[in-house]
């Protein structure tokens, strides 16, 4: 019993289907997110379990994990980010093409976790904008999948003009990320 994605609302007739462009593109983007697993520590092992056959993430369209930022849509930051790793994370984020989403998996990526020390970045939202936070130490695979489903909701309902709007550009500037 295979569950298919519902078609968006539209006007249907003999040989044609009319709907708004935003809905079609939203549906396509949401169901084919290619993640970049930026796995640094323990949450990375839970991600490996999520990609395994028991909690298969590939059924949500994330079949192809891309380790190259140029070909990825979703940056999944899993694990503690130390201050030494911060510039690397920023560079990987900069290299991704729009539209891109970021999900912070685990307590360490969201806020530094239990490591309130001199060497750990207290949350990746200090250097890059984050869309979804998944708390847990480590979060269960079901929680990681729920986080990806929330990203799917965001991708499905996003306006096509959002990435060019002034508000978005101002947000990126507040993180010192250069925009064209």
């Amino acid at each position, binding site marked *: 019993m295979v569950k298919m994605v519902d078609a968006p609302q539209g006007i249907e007739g003999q040989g044609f289907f009319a709907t708004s462009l935003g809905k079609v593109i939203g549906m396509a983007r949401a169901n084919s997110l290619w993640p970049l697993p930026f796995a*640094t520590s*323990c949450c990375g092992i839970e991600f490996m379990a999520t990609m395994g056959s*028991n909690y298969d993430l590939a059924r949500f369209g994330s079949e192809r994990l891309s380790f190259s930022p140029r070909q990825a849509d979703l940056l999944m930051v899993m694990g503690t980010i*130390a201050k*030494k790793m911060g510039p690397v994370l920023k560079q990987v984020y900069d290299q991704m093409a729009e539209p891109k989403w970021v999900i912070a998996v685990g307590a360490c990526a969201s806020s530094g976790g239990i*490591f309130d*020390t001199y*060497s750990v970045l207290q949350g990746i939202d200090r250097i890059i904008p984050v869309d979804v936070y998944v708390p847990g130490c480590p979060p269960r695979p079901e929680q990681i999948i729920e986080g990806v489903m929330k990203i799917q909701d965001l991708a499905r309902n996003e306006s096509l003009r959002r990435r060019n709007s002034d508000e978005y550009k101002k947000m990126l500037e507040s993180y010192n990320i250069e925009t064209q």
Partner: protein
Amino acid sequence: MSQLDTRNQDKFVSTETIDGEIATLNLGPTHPATHGVFQNVMKVDGERIISSEPTIGYIHRAFEKLAERRPYNQITPITDRLNYCSSPINNMGWHMTVEKLAGIEVPKKVDYMRVIIMELARIADHLVCNSVIGVDTGALTGFTYVFQEREKIYEMYEEVCGARLTTNIGRIGGFEREFSPVFMVKLKKFLKEFPAKFQEFDNLLTRNRIFMDRVIKAGPISAEKAMSYGFTGPNLRAAGVDYDVRVMNPYSSYGDFDFIIPVGQDGDTYDRFIVRQEEIRQSLGIIRQALDGMPEGKHYADVPSFYLPPKEEVFRSMEALIYHFKIIMGETPIPAGEVYHAVEGANGELGYYLISDGGRTPYRLHFRRPCFIYYQAYPEMVKGAMLSDAILTMSSMNVIAGELDA
């Protein structure tokens, strides 16, 4: 025989290059094949590696400084995150260190329970390492088979402590509760069904001609060099030295169990793979022996100043209430002194050097992390090798970033 001859790395360490150009290749901190964040800046001549310089510290979380701030029972979650693929072993090692310092004797039943949990953790860690060696050669199927078995081990951890990966299992003085009947059922089912599934995984890779051609003679190390570089664990045993902390300095009643230590010959990737496969089988044997010979007794030592009293008594008796308050607040009567205790982790000798001044928190806690010590031999192991063999060497050494950086 001809394709194995080209592996001879000594022949290729020379200063003549193919076209007079040495390229610098950055096997950077984010790379699909480096399982964990560490960086290697390599100088390559075509496909041959001339030299490599590792940089680590990308996930340094300052465990040793953090441990000086936390009371003894709050340090267990930190030890979880050292080698997170086999966190129960780290937890048990820490509890045994504190018990050694405080002079606590645990009943034999606790020892056997600890052995069962530690051997399950060892199986889980070796399964990850071996399946990842397969993935790095392109064999992705083994990974999916093996992770299904790891889910069964996770379910067993959940029955005992509630968590899957970073377990915080056990307490100083024993376990928080008896093994439940559901756990026993799951364990017996695992012992019955796992060998067949493991044999399926074994059939995919161990005598597979393509796999063997790929990993034999990749990243070898001799026994003397391994000992000088501080190797312990499966990496050392693959080089031919049968050093195992469970046999040399037995702890937790390991002397009662009958198991062999598998030893390799060349110290190359194939030997490391085979040693880990055999250790999984030996661990299954140890778990069976522990289960069959489990003695009667309590699941905790009788030390009310370290081990939380049962909740019914806390609500009724004054002493239990005071002990409960003191343990939670961290006021445990640890004597001043220093102790070094080592356990056989999945990667080798995991040591805890604890100095206490009699206060709430340790004065100094140092982790002797096996990954950190043997990774320094990596540039020597890949000198003259081809780039793809270097990737295999790295993944077969089972470098876990949490243990590397701490």
